[in-house]
């Protein structure tokens, strides 16, 4: 059991870490592609400088995303061999397709984009960054098709004790995919928007020779941001409504709702006892959970205790309730961060519309710090969705405890966890250092142009 716990810790560390970098890649690739497209259409050099400036930061981030991603593909076979055998017939396909369609596209064309400014026509060069944006967002689709199968298995049969794919299009059409994928796309856009807003605000506060670049970037990011956050919240809401039907245990855990309720209240704050089965104290808003779930002020939400009993009858003895403090607080942190971002994006847009520059007011200096909000939301969101599925690795079909590699010992796991922790810690520090350094324009910013001019 120790081995399973260690394997889970490692997967959590490596996947959370990987997902620090992915959303920025998803959202910023689109933004940079838009900037370069406007440059091509208008010839305005400021847009070209914008594309190169934000592109440089994009590249630093992208490298981290790629290297941490290789780890993920290998880790299924390395640490979760029994899982891989069980689901490989179904799960392997989207992963292979992700590599063949999306990774090849984004990696090949990013190389062309970086090195091809002088070698390709303006239009063709802009097309390459669009292909990068399409490639990375397409890769998100395929990995989410795979993950959605774990959450809500569809289109499968059983053969020799392992799962087999019965219909590829059912796999793709899994309703979970179509609330999850748009939500992740929008979260990528949100991450990029706040990244650009925060860094632009930082530069505008300090003042430098590239002020037009940052004013324009701020304007773009405020529009991109408000659209993105609005989408994230609306789609997240649909996802939660779907969760009520398809993953009731996760929803009940996110709400710490022990007893089935109709109508069901929304918890503002709940404190439970140490056994995790009783509520000690809570502030709840009556009827609000039913309203969110069903768009009307009544409707039953099944409680944890009833679900636990039902699952024991269906699946046998065991604990089917996820870790409540985690599911409860990650949900609240994610949603809280989301609404705070909505407010800040609205504020940024207000500043733009009312043209409150160059004196934007006191709240403005908080915007650079707000860069952290999407990261908080992204991380807590994934912790919720993965930990809320436990004890299942494939819901209803395989338990996490039965999925790990039997030949991987505790010693090996400790070795690998230490390796990852050390190297990831070091690289995170270096990544932030480089991003911070390159967040301000300096004379060194354009080596390619100065060399070409020489």
């Amino acid at each position, binding site marked *: 059991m120790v081995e399973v716990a260690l394997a889970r810790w490692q997967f959590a560390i490596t996947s959370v870490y990987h997902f620090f970098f992915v959303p920025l890649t998803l959202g910023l690739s689109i933004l940079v592609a838009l900037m370069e497209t406007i440059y091509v259409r208008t010839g305005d050099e400021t847009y070209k400088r914008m594309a190169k400036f934000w592109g440089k930061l994009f590249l630093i981030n992208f490298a981290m995303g790629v290297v941490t991603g290789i780890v993920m593909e290998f880790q299924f076979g390395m640490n979760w061999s029994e899982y891989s*055998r069980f689901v490989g017939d179904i799960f392997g396909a989207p992963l292979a397709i992700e590599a063949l369609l999306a990774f090849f596209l984004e990696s090949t064309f990013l190389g062309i984009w970086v090195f091809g400014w002088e070698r390709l026509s303006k239009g063709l060069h802009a097309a390459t960054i669009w292909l990068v944006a399409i490639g990375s967002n397409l890769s998100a689709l395929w990995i989410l098709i795979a993950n959605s199968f774990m959450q809500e298995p569809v289109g499968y049969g059983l053969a020799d004790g392992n799962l087999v794919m019965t219909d590829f299009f059912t796999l793709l059409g899994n309703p979970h995919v179509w609330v999850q994928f748009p939500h992740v796309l929008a979260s990528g856009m949100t991450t990029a928007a706040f990244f650009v807003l925060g860094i632009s605000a930082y530069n505008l506060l300090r003042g430098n020779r590239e002020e037009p670049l940052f004013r324009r970037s701020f304007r773009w990011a405020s529009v991109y941001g408000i659209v993105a956050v609005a989408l994230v919240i609306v789609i997240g809401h649909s996802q939660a409504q779907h969760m009520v039907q398809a993953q009731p245990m996760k929803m009940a855990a996110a709400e710490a709702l022990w007893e089935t309720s109709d109508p069901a209240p929304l918890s503002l704050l709940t404190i439970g006892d140490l056994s995790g089965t009783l509520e000690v104290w809570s502030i709840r808003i009556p009827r609000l959970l039913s309203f969110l779930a069903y768009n009307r002020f009544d409707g039953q939400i099944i409680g944890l205790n009833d679900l636990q009993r039902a699952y024991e009858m269906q699946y046998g003895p065991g604990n089917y309730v996820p870790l409540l403090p985690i599911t409860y607080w990650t949900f609240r942190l994610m949603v809280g961060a989301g609404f705070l971002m909505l407010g800040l994006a609205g504020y940024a847009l207000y500043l733009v519309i009312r043209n409150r520059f160059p004196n934007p007011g006191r709240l403005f200096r908080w915007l650079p710090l707000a860069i952290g909000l999407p990261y908080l939301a992204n991380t807590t969101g994934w912790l919720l969705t993965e930990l809320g599925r436990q004890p299942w690795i494939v819901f209803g079909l395989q338990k996490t405890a039965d999925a790990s590699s039997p030949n991987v010992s505790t010693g090996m796991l400790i070795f690998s966890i230490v390796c990852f922790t050390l190297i990831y810690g070091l690289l995170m520090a270096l990544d932030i250092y480089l991003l911070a350094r390159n967040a301000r324009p300096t004379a060194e910013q354009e080596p390619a142009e100065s060399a070409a001019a020489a």
Partner: protein
Amino acid sequence: MDLNILWFVLITVLFIGFFFLEGFDYGVGILLPFLAHDDRERRMIINTIGPFWDGNEVWLITAGGAMFAAFPHWYASLFSALYIALILMLMALIVRGVAFEFRSKVEDPRWRRTWDWMLCLGSAIPALLWGVAMSNLLQGLPIDASMTYTGGFWNLLNGHALVSGLASLVIFALHGAVFLTIKLDDPLRSRAFDAAWRLWPIALVVGMFAVGGGYFVSDMYERLGIGPGVIPLSAGAAMLSAGWFIRKRQGGWAFILTGICIVFSTLTIFRGLYPRVLISSLNPDWSLTIYNAASSNYTLRTMSIIALIFLPVVLVYQGWSYYVFRGRISHESSLEY
């Protein structure tokens, strides 16, 4: 067509593509600290593979993904068996990947020299480990009746595996050196030819030991007999003739020949494996084959349609990227990395 055979072939193709392409990336990285005399020259060397290295690495990701999709038991047994070796390889690949991007972002020469060595080690370690992995694949691993590996880490570093590792290290370094002769001007081009000329006899000798030893540690002898056949012989002949073209300073031909050597060697390895995918050294009945390790026919068929449509597309646009960046990097070229 038997889909199981088709997917074995496709995975072989993916590994061939990977070793041919990433092989010279590794080689360039390995030679980096040794061929360049100053920072500018180091940047030039790195920039020869700048547009390509990431796209080349995806061949590995795709090969791994294809293994997972088509032969999940192979993927599961092999990756869990090679756990520590893969951790080491992952560490190296992480450091190497980041090195490309981070290296020139800071002016400090100590920063740059550190990252150059990270690039070098990050290229050398995988180059070595691939030979170790291929050797162990051909020798067989202690796999039990439930397809689970029962060995440890150190038994992977046996004599033949280490010789093979050395062979792959030197051959990739040679492949990289020859690549550099096509992508650079003098004086670097000249230095690359010198390095290739020094590496070539080592590649030949170590390669011969690896191949020869292979007859003793694997069942190649039983399966192929004393005469290995056209493909392995061509691999050897290609490596032999590469030396001639290196001597004559004809980089293009030399590159084609080292490439042929790598391609045909990989083909030989997979032919030696077939129809097994993971040989059990405990009991041949416990070996994983293209049949008992495979996904269902439905999955193989679905994946085949997708692969046969998109793999040619990938080849076209990756080929195009090499065309866009044809030509040599000179002292005056603008450098992005």
